[in-house]
């Protein structure tokens, strides 16, 4: 029973972890730029959720579209401020690591200055209250407190399931964007061969700006659920989240956003198995997984070729 619990919880967490990593991978795949501030945007997404839950007093689920739109705009603006200067430099990939490291320091410092270092959490029953309200409006009956959701005879906290379902929807939307829209097709063209895309007349900057904005938006959406998945969030949470998302992205394969979905699920199942059977070792997991995957399959689980960069 413990094993079933660990596996199902692992898949739920894994779907969520896919959402955590997919934005980073999209940004890397399109721009060949390493966004070391990814985890900090995730942390800012969590603060959007705090704002929505405490100031407005409504379901934190409403923070999902809000965070996505805010950070989509922030990402596009940030792209136009930072990246053209970076492109002109000698070694854009190396400098991008340092630049975004600086950005992550700035974000963490500013968040600490404004919100302090205390651990913040949201009551887990606040998430998903919109569903029970709608149910009461439509079908009548009494509002009930959402209990654990049962899967295979095991009870799981409702926020885990909601986060997993939202992640599935988000990944499906990324898939639709990449394979069914015109901008997505252009994005894939830039991903596979940047020079040729430029030569065929694709506006690479516009495509990259869109991908950067979407990447940050997805990070912020993942951040909305972070207080529920990890219990609480501080401004220092960003650095850990960056490491975790790097492990997930490398596990899937760098530069292939849909590989991240697989990487996330594998990571989630490993995470839950380690949490269940060797809980004191849990913090080591991202690093150990990174070392093993880099030793055994440097191109990632789905990678066809080793990344040249």
């Amino acid at each position: 029973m413990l094993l079933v619990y660990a596996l199902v919880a692992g898949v739920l967490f894994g779907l969520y972890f896919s959402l955590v990593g997919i934005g980073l991978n999209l940004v890397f795949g399109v721009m060949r730029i390493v966004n070391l501030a990814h985890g900090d945007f995730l942390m800012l997404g969590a603060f959007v959720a705090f704002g929505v839950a405490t100031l407005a007093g409504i379901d934190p689920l409403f923070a999902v579209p809000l965070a996505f739109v805010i950070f989509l705009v922030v990402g596009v603006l940030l792209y136009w401020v930072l990246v053209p200067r970076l492109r002109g430099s000698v070694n854009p990939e190396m400098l991008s690591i340092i630049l975004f490291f600086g950005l992550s320091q700035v974000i963490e410092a500013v968040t600490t200055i404004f919100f302090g270092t205390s651990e913040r959490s949201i009551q887990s029953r606040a998430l998903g209250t919109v569903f029970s309200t709608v149910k009461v409006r439509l079908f009548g009956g009494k509002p009930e407190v959402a209990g654990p959701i049962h899967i295979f005879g095991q009870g799981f906290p409702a926020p885990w399931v909601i986060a997993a379902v939202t992640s599935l929807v988000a990944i499906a939307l990324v898939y639709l964007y990449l394979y069914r829209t015109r901008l997505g097709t252009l994005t894939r063209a830039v991903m596979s061969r940047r020079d040729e895309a430029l030569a065929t007349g694709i506006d690479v900057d516009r495509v990259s700006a869109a991908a950067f904005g979407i990447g940050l938006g997805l990070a912020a959406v993942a951040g909305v659920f972070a207080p529920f998945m990890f219990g609480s969030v501080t401004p220092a949470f960003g650095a850990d989240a960056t490491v975790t998302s790097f492990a997930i992205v490398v596990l899937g394969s760098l530069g292939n956003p849909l590989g991240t979905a697989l990487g996330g699920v594998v990571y989630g199942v490993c995470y839950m198995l380690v949490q269940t059977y060797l809980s004191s070792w849990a913090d080591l997991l991202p690093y150990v997984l990174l070392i093993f995957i880099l030793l055994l399959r440097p191109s990632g689980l789905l990678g066809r070729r080793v990344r040249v960069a």
Partner: protein
Amino acid sequence: MPSAFRHALFIVVPLLAVLAGLPGVYQNHLLLFNFVVATICGPIVGVVILYGIYNLIGFTTPQYFQLIYGLLIMGLVLFLPAGLVSLATRRGWHVP
């Protein structure tokens, strides 16, 4: 802290830091200050500036140190990617 002692620290700590390696995360990022232009003075200048700021405000208000540190990094990467020492070498001054 007496000010003489403080000034001594201001000079000694960077030197020790160069010899022994800085603690924690700041260790790896000093290369920033002599980025590309490989000089001996680069890391020393970097350490003096960074540890100077750290000694002034790093203990009392670490978040403001972090903010300055991050802004410094971003500014250097965007506007002076070859590092502070490149200001001198660009003018043709010889820097060891």
